């Protein structure tokens, strides 16, 4: 037996040099996370360099969802481009509609009636609720709390139905248009929104009952996903991430648009700067959005839902059939669109994810010359590498979920 072993050719081979050149250097493993990983919420690829279970380097790779929206905007006329803005951030369509409409209206120097402005605020806040609900549901699902997902999507369904009665569409609403709204708000909209918003605070209580004191949720989220406020500001992070790090900056307060200055609401702010604080900020924002929507419902001013600008907004069907002038305007707007005076503007709004800023250049024709979308997900995702560095791989799911990015918003 021993003799056979002695003659074993494998045993006689020289030992391979398994030792690395520098024995003190850590042995890193490269792991490819995504682009088809369920917790990346879209097609995001992250290259992780691991030392054991610790991430030493994380490099996000984006662009899988790039659809050339900015290029396409240059081919559409001004009003048509609204439909493309829906598809940028598909969880907060109305925020994107709003920022585009506000930017073009600034170029046109168009005065929007108060009723339309309040309607826009109400819809943008419903959109924020919708986005935060999807975030909460999927984020909790990632961490392992499955039931929260069903609770959140139950309420989200109600919001999507409200969007449907307004615009006929559940997601790609395109309801906020240049000059006002796309359609007259439907009969009974206030009852639908009112019923939803009266019931909603108790639903937020339910989510909080499920999670706030849940020991597993707290262990998975507290002291996880830290990134310093200085790093966040340097890298362009905005929105709830910043407010969970103690900086009370909200564009709705600092640079109010569309009558936000007339609403009474607070900006939730926490100093802990971890995943749990970001969760608390977003739940706080849901409660504040509820307040804003309630105020909008109660104080909705009378008036028109679009600007009195016949060269921009389509005429009533009735007028179009009876008045020559209205017919001409209708024909001109539909066939060639309206012209926007040459100039450039930057308009930003507070989306559920942070600062959306549209930089729009017009050369005086009926199509945008350049539309640049400064999207919050792009800026936020840039900080992912720093946030994940030297953390456990198991925490990476909670950390990146807390950023609440949408890949359509990142890649455009």
């Amino acid at each position, binding site marked *: 037996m021993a003799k056979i072993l002695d003659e074993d050719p494998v045993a006689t081979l020289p030992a391979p040099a398994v030792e690395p050149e520098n024995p003190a250097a850590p042995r890193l493993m490269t792991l490819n996370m995504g682009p088809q990983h369920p917790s990346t919420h879209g097609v995001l690829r992250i290259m992780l360099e691991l030392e054991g279970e610790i991430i030493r380097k994380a490099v996000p790779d984006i662009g899988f969802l790039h659809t050339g929206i*900015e290029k396409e905007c240059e081919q559409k006329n001004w009003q048509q481009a609204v439909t493309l803005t829906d598809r940028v951030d598909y969880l907060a369509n109305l925020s994107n509609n709003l920022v585009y409409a506000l930017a073009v209206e600034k170029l046109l120097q168009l005065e929007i009636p108060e009723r339309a402005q309040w309607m826009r605020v109400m819809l943008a806040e419903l959109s924020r609720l919708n986005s935060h609900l999807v975030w909460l549901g999927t984020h909790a699902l990632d961490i392992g709390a499955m039931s929260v997902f069903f609770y959140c999507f139950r309420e989200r369904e109600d919001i999507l139905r409200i969007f449907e009665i307004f615009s006929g569409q559940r997601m790609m609403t395109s309801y906020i248009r240049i000059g006002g709204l796309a359609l007259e708000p439907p009969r009974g909209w206030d009852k639908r929104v009112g019923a939803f918003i009266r019931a909603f605070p108790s639903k937020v209580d339910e989510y909080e009952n499920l999670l706030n004191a849940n020991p597993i949720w707290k262990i998975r989220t507290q002291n996880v996903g830290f990134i310093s406020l200085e790093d966040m500001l340097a*890298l362009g992070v905005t929105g709830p991430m910043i407010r969970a790090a103690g900086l009370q*900056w909200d564009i709705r307060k*600092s640079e109010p648009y569309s009558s936000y200055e007339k609403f009474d609401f607070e900006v939730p702010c926490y100093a802990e700067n971890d995943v749990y604080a970001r969760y608390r900020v977003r739940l706080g924002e849901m409660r504040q959005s509820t307040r804003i929507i309630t105020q909008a419902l109660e104080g909705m001013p009378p008036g028109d839902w679009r600007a009195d600008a016949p060269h921009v907004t389509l005429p009533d069907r009735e007028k179009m059939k009876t008045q020559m002038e209205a017919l001409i305007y209708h024909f001109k707007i539909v066939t060639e669109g309206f012209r926007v005076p040459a*100039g450039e503007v930057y308009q930003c709004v507070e989306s559920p994810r942070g600062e959306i*800023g549209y*930089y729009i250049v017009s050369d005086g024709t009926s199509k945008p010359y*350049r539309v640049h979308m400064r999207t919050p997900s792009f800026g936020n995702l*840039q900080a992912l590498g720093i946030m994940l560095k030297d953390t456990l791989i198991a925490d990476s799911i909670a950390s990146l979920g807390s950023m609440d990015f949408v890949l359509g918003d990142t890649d455009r």
Partner: protein
Amino acid sequence: MSAGEGINVIQHDAILETREAFGETTLIADPARIVHLCRHLKAEEKFVRLSAVTAVDWHPAEPRFEVIYHLHSIENNRRLRLKCRLPENDAVIDSVYEVWRGADWYEREVFDMFGIRFRNHPNLVRILMPIDWDGHPLRKDYPVHGHKYDYSQESHG
């Protein structure tokens, strides 16, 4: 009402022109001294945030490109637009990465979409398009529907 009203005018020798429109301030800057100017704006005028970097292609006019920086000061609640004009045959500008690290991805995007190069950028590679892509899609002479594929050139042997 708008951010930045009643605040002093920014003075710096790299500023070629100052414009006010729609309540927004635009500074047209000398591209050769952009980093110097940005360092000044960050340190003295408290523009701690770089909101975005982008570009506009004015093809066929010259100078063809405009690189645009949107700055934001949370402290002063003020926004500012910086603009640098670059000719087509020398579309190169210094990277502001050393002033704001957030410029990293934005400058990569501008490089990817317009082919403007940023000197001293740590990792100037394409970000949205595939690494081996030809051309820069947001240039005005880039076709919207891509380059048409010619099936007649295929061999059917």
